């Protein structure tokens, strides 16, 4: 690991000031992704700014929304009574990610910024446009079994590895950030990016901004939420495909619904067309299959990930069945 300076800050202003002074400075909180990447030489910040002693560690039910601080540990959030009561989908998604040890340290803000697990991104001897812009993409003609089927570009076909982000996308979370120009709120749909010609940018967060927390607007999805993750191992593996379903049922009629998919794109993949199709319809396998077909429109496979074209709709139908509680 490269050597670096370390600074423990005690105010948000100080954190922003550190980032403003040194473009090669990075925030560290849980460190579970950053330190890993630094060991591989994928990231080499000159300075780590430790924000663990800022007061971003609260979970508060507020009128109309649930607020979760940026440094709340994933394990703490996933077992929090308010999260379980108001947003159980988030808890399910977080508990399906990483291991108990990692979740004890990994934070909400860090998970939002979790970098891709593309093996070529991690291999510093391989060309990778995300790690080294302009060097090329090794995954496009390489072993791309884990890679994206939606929203890819000729520069990058990596996927966002987070489960938490998929649930937050389905739940329309809003990310709270502070920067030199003040505070701003970023809807999660605008937070993560597609690769385009600049895959080195995972998000729209400015380099001088700090995530302070996130809010999830109230909804009526708690009773019919489900996160289904399909992976190579029974536990502790990144998703091949995951589907987040948040549904409001009136009898067997779908009154409202949110759907997002993981393991398929550079950002958590919201399925708006399928949502629109299902609104007002009966919760039935037939309708779920039609929605899944619609969701797969525009999907494009590479040499080794064509299985995702079948696995994704199947996972979606299964997740919808479980969330709605219908049999068959």
């Amino acid at each position, binding site marked *: 690991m490269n050597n670096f300076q370390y600074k423990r800050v005690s105010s948000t202003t100080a954190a922003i000031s550190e980032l403003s002074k040194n473009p090669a400075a990075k925030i560290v909180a849980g460190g579970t992704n950053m330190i890993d990447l630094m060991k591989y030489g994928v990231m080499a910040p000159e300075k780590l700014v430790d924000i663990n002693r800022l007061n971003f560690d609260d979970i508060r039910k507020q009128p109309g929304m649930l607020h979760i601080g940026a440094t709340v540990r994933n394990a703490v959030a996933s077992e929090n009574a308010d999260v379980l009561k108001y947003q159980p989908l988030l808890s399910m998604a977080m508990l399906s990610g990483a291991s108990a*040890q990692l979740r004890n340290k990994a934070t909400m803000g860090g998970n939002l910024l979790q970098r891709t697990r593309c093996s070529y991104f991690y291999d510093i001897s391989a060309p990778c446009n995300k790690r080294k812009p302009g060097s090329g993409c090794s995954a496009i003609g390489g072993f791309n079994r884990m890679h994206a089927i939606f929203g890819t570009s000729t520069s990058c076909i990596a996927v966002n590895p987070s489960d938490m982000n998929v649930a937050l996308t389905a739940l329309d979370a809003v990310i709270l950030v502070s920067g030199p120009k003040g505070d701003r709120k970023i809807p999660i749909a605008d937070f993560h990016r597609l690769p385009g010609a600049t895959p080195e940018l995972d998000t729209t967060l400015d380099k001088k901004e700090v995530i302070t927390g996130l809010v999830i607007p109230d909804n009526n999805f708690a009773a019919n939420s489900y996160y289904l993750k399909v992976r190579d191992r029974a536990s502790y593996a990144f998703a091949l495909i995951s589907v987040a379903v948040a549904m409001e049922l009136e009898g067997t009629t779908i009154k409202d619904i949110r759907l997002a998919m993981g393991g398929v794109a550079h950002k958590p993949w919201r399925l708006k067309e399928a949502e629109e199709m299902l609104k007002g319809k009966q919760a039935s396998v037939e309708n779920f299959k039609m929605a899944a077909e619609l969701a797969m429109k525009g999907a494009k496979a590479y040499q080794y990930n064509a299985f995702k074209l079948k696995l994704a709709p199947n996972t979606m139908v299964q997740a919808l069945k479980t969330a709605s509680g219908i049999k068959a």
Partner: protein
Amino acid sequence: MLVVKTEINTFMKENESREKEEMELTGNSRRDFLKKSSLITAVALTPVAAVKASELRLDERLSDAIEQMPLNIEINGKTYNLKVEPRTTLLDLLREKLNLTGTKKGCDQGQCGACTVHIDGVRANSCLQLAIMNDGAKITTIEGLAKGDELHPMQEAFIKHDGFQCGYCTPGQIMSAVACIHEGHANSETEIREFMSGNICRCGAYANIVNAIKEVKAGGNV
């Protein structure tokens, strides 16, 4: 030489005032001081003395002395006042500096769980923790689990149920297993397997590890 001395004084004063400005714990001013002071040293020394300094690797030693940051940490009930480089992981601190080699380095990337320790009572991968970020923390490692010669019930259960073969992952498995019960995640075999999934055993002793945890959980002593 007089000129050089004046320069040194100027630099020292600059540095002092900067340190006063920065109320927070930082390696910044030390590093700046190092850069400048090394430069001055090089200027101030005669060529012969500079060569001598280089032979003795004085710069590196100076760098070691200055770039290390203070760390107060309690490990297995004992308080340590240490100096560490910011990049030292908790795992390397335990194994390389404090000779607490019970905690194992497996993958060193947070994928195997062999390095699991308890930080303030909560299990974590010590390979992905910077030691400096744990200033003021209380760490428990496998060495801190037994009470003298009396093994912890989980250690006893691992022996009884043959919860290991080569033994390399065992310290991490045991630390994780104790935490798994403390967290309330050992209520069924399925739950144990899910919440122990961060500890890989290449010998495949999983079935026996699960049995050991079930027994300790049922015993109610942990």
